[in-house]
């Protein structure tokens, strides 16, 4: 009879490094570490040698020098005397602005097109299929250039608004659509409660937040009442009042008035200007990404089995409620993960702003600053760091949201 014996207690041999699974992974990792270290040493050494040969060095001191150039769109105070770092900040905010706007509109375009593509109207669904295919299959750079060219060629210049026989006129005397951008009236307060305009606007926002809390309280109160008595009190008027009254009071007290854009000299002055490059980039990014989102939305809705819709109808829910309460919550689980990557794509594609002259971070830090200072390595590294941070942040936030709508499995 054979008896069980312990496996031979071998002493360590060199061949075990390759053949024994206990040690093999260690061997591979050591090899990988050595190769990695060698690569880094090799590249670093080349870099040092090349820089020494060219007499250059890595230094970020240029960031505090004055930039010397102007930027047409800025969300913070900036002029040509500000530092390169400030210019990079202006670009950074512009990137975030266009990415944020484009994410919202792309979602709207995508949802509308995705739902309409499933419509039983033959013409509309074919039209939407055409939209999706044509935008998905042509490079976004070409779209950005085409849309920007269309904007500059089709819309009139401010010159067309001038003179007695002007070929263009302002809409309602308040909106001007030019190829330099769209000018709209700007609201302002004649006798604001604070000296600075932004504080007044903060007050208005605070008012809205207060209204939101009030409306919520009213709802909670109504729910309690309903649970206690079985009758839901009418809340429509109350909620409407909660929203409107504080707003109207604030507007009256502070004296809301409008500043209209006016043609003065070379350009329209006054009002709010939304620059042409911003509009072109914003629109191009949203309509391009919208086509991708439309496909996600369609796939998401189709992923909800037909039985769910039928079951909901059998329960007597109206079509609107079927969509809101049954189909969409389930479809969202399928839609959100690709939606995240589409938002990331928008942020990254916004770097194509240089094609239309929009001053995003690629155009300021990675463009003019790089050209003027010649600090290529430093600028490109900073640029990559920014995009990396932005991408990781967006995907983190969206993943948290994704986790909250995910099917809770037990």
């Amino acid at each position, binding site marked *: 009879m054979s008896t069980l014996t312990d496996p031979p207690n071998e002493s360590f041999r060199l061949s075990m490094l390759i053949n024994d699974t206990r040690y093999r992974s260690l061997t591979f990792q050591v090899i990988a570490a050595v190769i990695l270290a060698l690569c880094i040493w090799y590249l670093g050494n080349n870099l040092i040698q090349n820089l020494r040969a060219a007499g250059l060095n890595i230094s970020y001191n240029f960031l505090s020098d004055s930039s010397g150039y102007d930027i047409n769109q800025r969300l913070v105070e900036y002029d040509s005397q500000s530092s390169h770092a400030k210019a990079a900040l202006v670009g950074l905010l512009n990137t975030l602005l266009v990415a944020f706007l484009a994410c919202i509109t792309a979602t709207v375009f995508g949802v509308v097109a995705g739902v309409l593509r499933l419509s039983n109207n033959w013409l509309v669904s074919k039209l939407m299929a055409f939209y999706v295919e044509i935008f998905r299959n042509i490079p976004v750079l070409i779209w950005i250039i085409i849309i920007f060219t269309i904007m500059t060629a089709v819309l009139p210049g401010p010159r067309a608004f001038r003179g007695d026989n002007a070929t263009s006129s302002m809409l309602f005397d308040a909106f001007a659509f030019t190829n330099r951008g769209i000018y709209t009236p700007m609201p302002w307060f004649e006798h604001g409660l604070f000296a600075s305009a932004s504080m007044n606007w903060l007050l208005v926002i605070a008012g809205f937040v207060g209204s939101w809390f009030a409306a919520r309280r009213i709802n909670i109160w109504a729910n309690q009442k309903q649970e206690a008595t079985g009758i839901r009190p009418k809340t429509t008027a109350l909620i409407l009042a909660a929203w409107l009254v504080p707003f109207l009071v604030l507007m009256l007290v502070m004296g809301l008035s409008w500043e209209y854009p006016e043609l003065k000299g070379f*350009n329209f002055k006054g009002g709010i200007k939304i620059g042409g490059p911003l509009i072109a980039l914003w629109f191009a990014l949203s309509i391009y990404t919208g086509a991708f989102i439309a496909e996600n939305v369609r796939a998401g809705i189709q992923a909800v089995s037909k039985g769910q819709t039928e079951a909901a109808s059998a329960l007597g829910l109206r079509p609107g409620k079927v969509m809101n309460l049954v189909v969409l919550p389930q479809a969202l689980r399928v839609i959100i993960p690709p939606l995240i990557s589409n938002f990331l794509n928008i942020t990254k594609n916004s770097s194509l702003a240089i094609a239309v002259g929009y001053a995003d971070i690629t155009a300021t830090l990675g463009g003019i600053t790089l050209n003027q200072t010649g600090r*290529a390595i430093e600028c490109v590294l900073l640029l990559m760091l920014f995009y990396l941070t932005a991408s990781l942040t967006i995907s983190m936030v969206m993943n948290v949201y994704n986790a909250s709508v995910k099917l809770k499995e037990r």
Partner: protein
Amino acid sequence: MKKTMILGAMAFAGLAAGAASAGTLDDVKARGKLNCGVTTGLVGFAAPNANGEWEGFDVAVCRAVAAAVLGDSTAVEFVPTTGKTRFTALASGEIDMLARNTTWTFSRDVDLKFEFVGINYYDGQGFMVPKELGVSSAKELDGATVCIQTGTTTELNLADFFRSNNISYEPVPVETNAEAQQQYLAGACDVYTTDASGLASTRATFDDPASHAILPEIISKEPLGPLVRHGDHEWGDVVRWTLNAMIAAEELGVTSANIGEMAAGTDNPEINRLLGAEGTLGEMLGLSADWAKNAIASQGNYGEVFAKNIGEDSPVGLARGLNAQWTEGGLLYSPPFR
């Protein structure tokens, strides 16, 4: 070359190896080709024509250097560079010289470690406006929208000009000259600003050039010239003196037409020294005795190159102005060949 073969074969792409450390002149001779950085396309200065051949004012400088060093003006590999890539291309040895209307400035010379070997075009930044705006001076441009081609010194000059005159403007940065032109013609900007030569070159391509005016103010000094890497003085000398040879040739009346008989020997000793009939100037540079003759014979002297590419009879239509010889009131002045 061994390493070249492996990597090239592996990645299915040629890997051009050149020993940049030995000295650019030896490299160029060993390679049999000159790598010359030019713009991606500016009519008159450097642009590929319909047959794909590069031609223009800057291109002629490259070709002249190739003719001087290698005896063959076609032995040039033109590397198109943007405002962003030009300095890296030169610093990293991808190109041997850069002839891309680059302004000679202190920081480029000192901080970025390049050597400007001379000036082949004295330029200045100007403004172009449609005549219908009725603007006659740049100081009337308060509040105007200005198209600028990015990647040059133009943005800085513009900011300085408007700040010092205490007027406001709105910059529209544009990537290429063609796009700037489209924006300007569509009325998306009131003014287009770049080097005055570039303005003339752009206006030349318009449907109706007469309805656009170039304003009298020239707001900056833009000495444009070829540059090489700092520290390689032999190579710097070759490029510098090839440029000087072209300028001196015009002053001395040597043209591509009469250079054959002049090279045989004249009674002007400076021409003889220039063309290699007397003295050992070529040897001092490490080139053959007929280096300057080759350069001038292939491209012509400075005046011929100017007239052919950007002169008044060319589509660009620039007057000589500052770029006339010093004997005719311009700034072109070549040190003596002695």
